[in-house]
């Protein structure tokens, strides 16, 4: 748990300096570098997807698909498409920085006016979400670019040892 919290703390500073109003998208999604845990990064060092010509997705896209359809789709609809209740995240991530995205998941957000009352809860202390924020980001980034469609990834890169170790530590498994 301590690890998640420190990650969030760093991100919160990022958010504070970046500002949610910036409305900048993440830019060119081309994957240029792969980390030991299987995460791909773009030229700016932001997590991104890597989908091969044969439809094999990187582990984070696959894991993000799975986590999204557990904890996010109950409000944001299937496949990041939105619902009558909450916005389409496949569109939201187009105008958010990575830092904003992580900040909103960790801290939640409120959009309350006389016309509508939209509230997203803070997931910062929910390990089922907080431990998978990069996975969710990568999956939704792939959705936002239409690099991945409305289906479950059939072929995926393997889960790495480093990923498993980080996941276990984050989820508090012995």
């Amino acid at each position, binding site marked *: 748990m301590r690890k998640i919290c420190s990650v969030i703390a760093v991100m919160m500073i990022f958010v504070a300096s970046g500002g949610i109003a910036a409305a900048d998208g993440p830019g060119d999604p081309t994957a240029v570098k792969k980390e030991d845990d299987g995460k791909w990064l773009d030229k700016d060092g932001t997590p991104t997807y890597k989908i091969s010509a044969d439809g094999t997705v990187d582990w984070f896209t696959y894991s993000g698909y799975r986590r999204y359809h557990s904890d996010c789709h109950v409000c944001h609809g299937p496949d990041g498409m939105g619902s009558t209740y909450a916005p389409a995240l496949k569109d939201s991530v187009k105008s958010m920085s990575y830092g904003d995205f992580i900040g909103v998941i960790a801290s939640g957000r409120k959009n309350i006016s006389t016309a509508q009352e939209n509230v997203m809860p803070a997931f910062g202390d*929910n*390990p089922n979400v907080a431990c998978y924020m990069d996975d969710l980001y990568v999956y939704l980034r792939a959705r936002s670019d239409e690099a991945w469609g409305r289906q479950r990834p059939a072929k995926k890169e393997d889960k790495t040892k480093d990923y498993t170790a980080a996941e276990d530590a984050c989820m508090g498994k012995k």
Partner: protein
Amino acid sequence: MRKVLLATCLSSAAALAVGSASANDELIKMSQNPKDWVMPAGDYANTRYSKLNQINAQNVGKLQVAWTFSTGVLRGHEGGPLIIGNMMYVHTPFPNKVYAIDLSQENKIVWKYEPKQDPNVIPVMCCDTVNRGLSYGDGKIILHQADTNLVALDAKTGQVAWSATNGNPAKGETGTSAALVVKDKVLVGISGGEFGVQCHVTAYDLKSGKQVWRAYSTGPDDQIKVDPAKTMSLGKPVGPDSSLKTWQGDQWKIGGGCTWGWLSYDPGLNLVYYGSGNPSTWNPKQRPGDNKWSMAIFARDADTGMAKWVYQMTPHDEWDYDGVNEMILSDQQINGQNRKLLTHFDRNGLAYTMDRESGELLVAEKYDPKVNWTSGVDMDKNSPTYGRPKVVAQFSTEHGGEDKNTKGICPAALGTKDQQPAAYSPETQLFYVPTNHVCMDYEPFKVSYTAGQPYVGATLSMYPPQGESHMGNFIAWDNKTGKIVWSNKEQFSVWSGALATAGGVVFYGTLEGYLKAVDAKSGKELYKFKTPSGIIGNVTTYENNGKQYVAVLSGVGGWAGIGLAAGLTDPTAGLGAVGGYAALSNYTALGGTLTVFSLPN
């Protein structure tokens, strides 16, 4: 004149409350007056049937809009208004406004109530901030707020008579269901099955709001209010620790079994009936055992809360098939014998007919032929698995295990029917059932519990049954034989409560926004009108000034708005098929409106 009648009515209610006599006699009498609609389902038996017959199969085609009313709220509008004399009481989703409308004064708003609630309750309400309606008793309108506060409002003025706190939203406990006034008590359930809540039904004193009894769905015998020797299940005493024995460790404390559906009541037997929801989490591997008494039908003594009988429909749920759908009470003959029956259309795709006095299981049959997770319920009384559904291994997510995607399960987690209540006509002896026609892939995985946070543990994708493109049916069901009599296809799930009338007409709404009238005998469509938004509300009828009206709330949302707004996932999309299934957002948009229909003058 009608106003005078109402005043008399209210004052007699006050008089009744003074004595030891309950509000019950008054309510039973009022519910027998077809001009009014005094409780959520119209009557204690939850039949949603009206004796009014001015609008009938011959003239319903001429129906037109009499008046409309905007609720000023955008979220999903479930439930329907109450009508008592000249007054109509309309509720809304969060922020849970209540409007008292005088039908004799050109629908003037006599009073309006809007509670102050912490908006942090919004995101802990799974699947939209719906509210299923008001109840009435002893001159009070009872509102069950999103934040679980149960509030009694003076029906004449809207002043708060009392308020009781039923749960804690910080732990994921929320209020969506309608309360039911029974005798001198208000009974109410609680929501939060996706947040690991230990759910219950609680009775409050109608006069003071003081808690009288609380019965949990899971836990020790005293908490679940069963008598090990006297509470029966399928003809046998449940025995000690009937719930505790079916959970690992103290998982029952976060066991769910939520009670967000409808309550019904038999005054003759003095029993209250309702169902309990899914066990938490959605990952079955994480909670070994039958997980009693989640997914169960309860019959409880209205005065004490003690269970007379209980029956678990889906032991050890693997699909999120909540058992909360309404129990419809009817008196019918089976094999020449008069029986007091209870009929229940479960999320799991089976329709159950039971003896409501003894809890004997009479019929359990699929009410959508596509239901595939079970090959049926063991009806052999001598079998050790009597009353249990036989699970098909191919569609068992427990059998598949964690991190394995089990494909093609029908029905989807939405169930063959969700909370949208069916209707029963004693004339045709048929049940009119709004249904979903959707299947799913379900992959469970490990999750950890954090108080007040979602505790789901499965990935789902949903789509219509293979080779079909419609996602709903509106059916007529014979509860004695367990057979579909007729079935009308609907493009989307039918998420609106039905209404049956003595005019031989059955009404329901659709997610595109149509109010439809069909012939009770044949299902033939007789009338449709597109209201301003998709309908997830329940159709109501009443009479005012000699004229019959039909009313329905439109305002798309709820789980239907979340699952269907964008269209369902196409499981074959990766194999080159084109696009997803029809998106509800192409047909309708948000907005709450009450539309009231009548025949032309």
